[in-house]
């Protein structure tokens, strides 16, 4: 592995720690909207971790999975928001 790939591994570890930190708000959030915000942040961080590990393991497939994960998390955010505002 080259030097920048070690940096990518360290960054992925820091992002995983941030996911654990943010999931506290997911548990104790006073309202449902707080929990949804924490879930949105976790989705963004996890897609960042997927991008980093795709570069570390030299697999472009992981980056494709990250793209699909971003699109699906966007759809699920819209769905939960629609549920929260009491639409359909």
């Amino acid at each position: 592995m080259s030097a920048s790939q070690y940096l990518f591994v360290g960054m992925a570890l820091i992002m995983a720690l941030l996911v654990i930190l943010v999931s506290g708000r997911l548990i104790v959030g006073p309202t449902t909207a707080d929990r949804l915000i924490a879930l949105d942040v976790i989705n963004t961080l996890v897609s960042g971790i997927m991008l980093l590990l795709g570069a570390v393991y030299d697999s472009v497939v992981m980056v494709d999975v990250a793209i699909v994960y971003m699109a699906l998390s966007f759809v699920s955010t819209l769905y939960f928001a629609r549920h929260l505002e009491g639409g359909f």
Partner: protein
Amino acid sequence: MLLAFFVGLLLLVSVVFNCLGAVSLYRFPDVYTRLHGATKCTTFGTLFIAFALLLYSIIRFMAVEGESRFLVLFIHVLIAAVVLLISNPAGAHALARAAHRSGILPEPAIVDSLEDMEKEMTRQRGGVAL
């Protein structure tokens, strides 16, 4: 080694903004300020991760001639950055509107422009609520 320095610089910006986004979930008082802090900071931070990967892959592609997998990585990370830049703010807007419609109001606010606009739109439609 020079490449690792610049990639580390971009990753440093990214980790600062991601940490600010995570801390803002705990330090801000209500839903809208939390949404403001968390979404902007994590979008910007993850975008800088994508920038670091773009720099890494294009430099590796130009350094080692004939290795096309780094060019493929470059293009795919570019697509991921565009998807992130479009989908994340749109989701945040949907969350803010949903929080407003579900009855959560910002505590010290005096003017509520969204409610005024929705009332005006309902009046123009002839009293039919959306």
